């Protein structure tokens, strides 16, 4: 993004009554264009929010961190540069670059790093912090020839890296990936000497833009994708199974098809972190089964579900997989080597990311692997990620039983499920799963409202805060933590403003059981819901229509009697209850 484009973005007015996202930018240099770019990228990412960026005083990063602690804003961006660790490493001070000052600079950097670490620990106890470590090249301080990494320089970098490692383990702190920044903003093209000398802003505009883009992504992460549907021939493996036979397909160095082995390895890694992997292939099903008996496969048959191997249009197969996974097309990536197949699927599911596996170009295929890692990037891997595939497989079996079993009555199946709920009424800030559910769930979501960790922590600190985290298991196995309700209690009234439930938990009447528990066990006589329709929360809308009938409206009030009249039969057992 050019500076002129960023300025134009900022001229557009946010929607009226837009909720404000306030960010504190702490740095030792004049933030100038960096503020402009961060705000512009955040406006692009969050068009419905009003963005406010507060900055501190020039040349006083420790002081600015202190100000951030006292500020109302709960998200901070801390941009370090070398001069913050020792002013002699900047261009605007003249403290000397001779050999006699090098040892002193090193000592000073270590002291400063220790002091910054303490400040960060203090600030991040109540706020989220995004950190960028020094991104500029070191000035010509060391007397060694430029091609030689001097011991002094290595020790200096180690001191700063040690600081970054210590900061990375602090809860609520994220560190910007310098290697990723290097890919888009080469080191030699970052420093603007003229700007640093004239105004105290050290970055070229292109570097400021690229840095700001990454910072904005760290402040407001993208939703990671949930599932990947892969083709087989010339994608999962090299060759056409129907033509070459089971031993004719390959994924090895010897057969010059190793890039497919790397692809399988990546799919396995994604699967281990909870990503659903399905197969769509125009092939003979028996032959595919035989191929998956090969022991040298890196991604085994059991890790892939479902298999849609047939001769029909791939979009039809993709549609069936979406139904089984119960996810929306925009949460899924489809990978195929054929531009025609990609176009066919894209024409039916325009929201789906359809990516070509470039079978004849290892370099491009490698970039695809990097892109896939990014699309499925997540901050944490939870217990629920490990059991997701099994629970979906069980769900599919359950649906099959419903279709083919002796009774078509939903109650019959729910009754024999042996469903158990564990209800947790106490918020634990070290558990990241509630936040993941709030920020990833689209379908059963009361209003689409997202929040940061700090917002959640701050909300839960209120004396009348209500929190309910629901875990589920039945005879088919556990689903883990599947639902979260947040709200405020005022006497016997509960106002629910956040309610999300994983799509894997649909149709088990968990939502009804939650309300029943709230009414019967917590002494609540009336519940209000802050509802807002979104493009994706149709299942939630259907639930409201079932309970309240009539048409959708922004606020619903439900009393115990109305609920009792509308609730279906519930067969769950409350197995565990966690209460402060």
């Amino acid at each position, binding site marked *: 993004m*050019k*500076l*002129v484009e960023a*300025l*134009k973005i900022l*001229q557009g007015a946010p929607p009226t009554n837009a909720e404000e996202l306030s960010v504190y930018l702490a740095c030792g240099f004049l933030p*100038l*264009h960096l503020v*402009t770019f961060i705000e512009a990228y955040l406006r692009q990412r969050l068009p419905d929010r009003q963005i406010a960026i507060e900055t501190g005083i020039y040349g006083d990063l420790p002081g600015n961190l202190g100000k951030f602690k006292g500020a109302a804003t709960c998200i901070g961006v801390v941009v370090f540069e070398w001069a913050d660790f020792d002013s002699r490493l900047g261009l605007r001070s003249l403290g000397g670059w001779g050999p006699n000052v090098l040892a002193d600079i090193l000592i000073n950097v270590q002291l400063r790093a220790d002091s910054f670490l303490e400040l960060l620990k203090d600030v991040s106890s109540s706020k989220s912090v995004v950190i960028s470590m020094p991104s500029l090249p070191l000035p010509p301080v060391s007397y060694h020839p430029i091609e030689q990494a001097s011991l002094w320089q290595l020790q200096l970098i180690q001191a700063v890296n040690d600081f970054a490692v210590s900061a990375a383990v602090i809860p609520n702190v994220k560190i910007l990936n310098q290697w990723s920044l290097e890919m888009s903003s080469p080191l030699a093209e970052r420093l603007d000497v*003229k*700007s640093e*000398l*004239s*105004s105290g*802003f050290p970055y070229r*505009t292109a570097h400021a833009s690229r840095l700001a883009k990454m910072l904005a992504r760290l402040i407001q992460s993208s939703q990671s994708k949930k599932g990947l549907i892969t083709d087989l021939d010339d994608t999962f493996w090299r060759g056409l199974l129907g033509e070459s036979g089971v031993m004719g397909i390959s994924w090895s160095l010897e057969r010059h098809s190793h890039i497919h082995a790397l692809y399988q390895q990546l799919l396995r890694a994604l699967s281990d972190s909870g990503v659903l992997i399905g197969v769509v292939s125009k092939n003979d099903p028996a032959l595919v089964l035989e191929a998956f008996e090969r022991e040298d496969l890196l991604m085994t048959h059991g890790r892939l579900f479902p298999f849609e191997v047939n001769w029909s249009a791939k979009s039809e197969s993709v549609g069936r997989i979406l139904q089984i996974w119960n996810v929306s097309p925009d949460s899924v990536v489809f990978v195929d080597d054929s531009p025609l197949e990609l176009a066919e699927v894209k024409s039916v599911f325009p929201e789906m990311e359809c990516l070509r596996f470039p079978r004849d170009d290892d370099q491009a295929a490698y970039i695809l692997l990097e892109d896939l890692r990014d699309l499925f990037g997540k901050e944490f891997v939870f217990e629920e990620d490990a059991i997701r595939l099994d629970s979906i497989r069980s769900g599919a079996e359950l649906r099959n039983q419903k279709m083919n079993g002796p009774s078509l009555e939903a109650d019959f199946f729910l009754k024999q499920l042996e469903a158990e709920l564990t209800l947790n009424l106490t918020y634990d800030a070290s558990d990241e799963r509630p936040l993941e559910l709030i920020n990833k769930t689209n379908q059963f979501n009361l209003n689409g409202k997202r929040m940061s960790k700090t917002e959640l922590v701050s909300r839960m600190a209120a004396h009348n805060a209500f929190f309910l985290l629901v875990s589920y298991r039945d005879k088919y196995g556990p689903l883990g933590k599947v639902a979260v309700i947040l709200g405020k209690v005022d006497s016997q009234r509960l106002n629910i403003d956040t309610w999300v439930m994983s799509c894997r938990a649909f149709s088990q009447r968990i939502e009804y059981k939650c309300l029943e528990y709230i009414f019967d066990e917590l002494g609540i006589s009336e519940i209000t819901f802050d509802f807002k329709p979104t493009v994706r929360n149709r299942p939630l809308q259907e639930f409201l229509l079932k309970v309240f009938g009539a048409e959708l409206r922004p606020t619903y009030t439900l009393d115990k009697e109305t609920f009792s009249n509308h609730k279906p039969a519930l067969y769950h057992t409350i197995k565990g209850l966690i209460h402060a």
Partner: protein
Amino acid sequence: MPEIRQRLTHCFASIFPNLSDDEIQSASHTSVANWDSLVTITLISVVEEEFNVSIPLEDFDNMVSFEQVLDRVWRRIENAS
């Protein structure tokens, strides 16, 4: 020159969105209330990006009106060609 004037007007508009094109042509730091030193630096950054030129530090003090900026940009482009 007219094309450069038009592109420069566009640069000014990104920084002074409330000025009309006519007002931009006659703008100076004395006639535009919020035109301070930081605005000058931002303006020069925008102009350098737009015209792919580098304006030396010593010119900064003499770039406090639309016509002065136009003159410096014109000279830079002329020197480069």
